[in-house]
């Protein structure tokens, strides 16, 4: 009887096969050509097939070899959510709010992912890093992003 002996590897193998399928599917319009004159689709298609083959081998292995006993996984969904959403929010708000407020929001937002965070520290750190990043990036390295964007008109006009 086949039994999944290493669940983590089984999922890993299946994921690799899915990735291979995904790239083959989205690359289906690319011309593959032949080995003499390879089209743009040749290399990615071959690699996707190879990845699926490796994925299959990983699955086979997961059916034969037991998983080693490891530490139980700790999941911290709140932290994942905040840390990943932070940069996305940064990207969405940057042009509108400008660097300084976006940075402050980002820092204060992601800092709450830690169970040791406290508001006073986070806000101080956020203010400090906003000032630093404005000085370093907009003044010194002259990135094309202003300290305050169009969404904060008052301060923007003052500066």
């Amino acid at each position, binding site marked *: 009887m086949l039994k999944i002996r290493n669940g983590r590897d089984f999922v890993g193998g299946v994921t690799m096969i899915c990735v291979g399928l995904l*790239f083959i599917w989205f690359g289906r319009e690319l*011309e593959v050509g032949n080995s003499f004159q390879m089209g743009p689709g040749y290399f990615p298609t071959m*690699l996707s097939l190879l990845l699926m083959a490796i994925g299959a081998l990983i699955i086979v292995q997961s059916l034969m070899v037991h998983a080693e006993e490891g530490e139980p996984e700790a999941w911290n969904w709140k*932290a994942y959510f905040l840390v990943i959403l932070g*940069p996305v929010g940064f*990207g969405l708000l940057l042009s509108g709010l400008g660097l300084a407020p976006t940075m402050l929001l980002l820092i204060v937002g992601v800092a709450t992912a830690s169970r040791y965070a406290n508001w006073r520290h986070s806000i101080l*750190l956020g203010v400090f890093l906003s000032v630093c990043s404005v000085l370093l990036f907009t003044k010194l390295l002259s990135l094309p*992003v202003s300290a305050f964007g169009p969404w904060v008109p008052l301060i923007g006009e003052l500066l």
Partner: protein
Amino acid sequence: MDIFANLWLGASTAFMPMNLFYGFIGCLLGTAIGVLPGLGPTATIAMLLPITFGLPPESALIMLAGIFYGAQYGGSTTAVLINLPGESSSVVTAIDGYQMARNGRAGAALATAALGSFFAGSVATILLAVAAPPLAAVALNFGPAEYFSLMVLGLVASVALASGSLLKAFAMIVFGLILGTIGTDVESGTPRYVFDIPELYDGLNFVAVSMGIFGICEILRNLESEHERSVGVKRVTGLMLTKEDFKRIIAPVLRGTALGSFLGVLPGGGAMLASFAAYAVEKRVSPNRAEFGKGAIEGVAAPESANNAGAQTSFIPMLTLGIPGNPVMALMVGAMIIQGITPGPNVISDEPELFWGMIVSMWSGNLMLVILNLPLIGLWVRMLTVPYHLLFPAIIGFCCIGAYSINNSVFDVFVMAGFSVIGFALSKMRFEPAPLLLGFILGPMLEENLRRAMLISQGDPSIFVRSPLSLSLLIFAVVVLALVLSPSISRKREEAFTE
């Protein structure tokens, strides 16, 4: 002698006040980052790379190299003082270094690490200066077939030296290679996997990708098992070594340097593997082997020399062949491309100032590190007390601005966020991120050379075995693979990584 003229040229570049300054900044930042646990050199270099965009190529690469070997130094400081290796390559240093610190000999341990590293760095730099030009000269005759085989060898070897499952490491390489095909196909101009997103026509940006899978992903993992570090560090005194100490460290430093210089050239975990191997060797051959684990000075001297030598010689394949052996070198290749330099054997002849300047700067950087580290040790100790809950938001902030500044576009920030999710999911399934990045960087080069070789041979794959050079490279790759797969070696490999 040619080499002296070259080194003179290098010195005149490296000792320019501006380059000395950037080298110094690099060493300083690198040490600081190395000291801070939870932030590896790959993530650091990715994060700081955008700052160097505005610099001239020499200064940019000198600074990045400084960050890299500065991080090696800094990592050993934390290993000795609080038994917390800042970098993977100083894991073994912690064993005896921390014991020495507990016996009140922290100063001696740090001095040993600094002097051993300096010696090893100097030797490895000379080695680099001597070995690189002839290697590059050989590589100049490489055709597409040889390049393809060389890259295959590099990828295979990096898998062999990685920890964990071989199959999974291969999967990561292939995944990385596929990700490398995203963007406009160079030969035909056809867009691939771009989904009509204009930013994707140039491909995924490797800096954003590596910040995601190394920088942000590390934070996610650290937050899972977050606990406040209580750092009880005493003042470090007694930096001077006794005569007896010197006598004991000479042989281990020499052995560590030799081993590290050799292992560093190999693709994969260069510096880390070197320090593990050096410690294992020392444990067998040292006359004081009974003291190992209880604070033997040899147990600090050997791995520290080895990891620094390895870090230095890992530049050899990158500078001479344009092939990165580890993720840090992959970022250096990326930095060169951004600076408009095509990495490869031509760098030595086309950009002698850059090449020799970098080599000499490695030596001067090592000297700076010794001068920097020993007196400033108090400052580094103080950095250890920065709590992680203040550190990680700052890292995320810098990654965001860094990603934005690559192309002045928020698209790269989203790419970074996306790859932090991918990297994290992969790490949950125990896939290593390093081979993925290596595959991603080498992918376009691999494809281009494969297609050119096949065009030359009119679709006959035997071109890869007809050229003697290409054939020997492929045979070497097969041998490496066979060695890793053979049961006895794989058992040893497991031991080495679990030790």
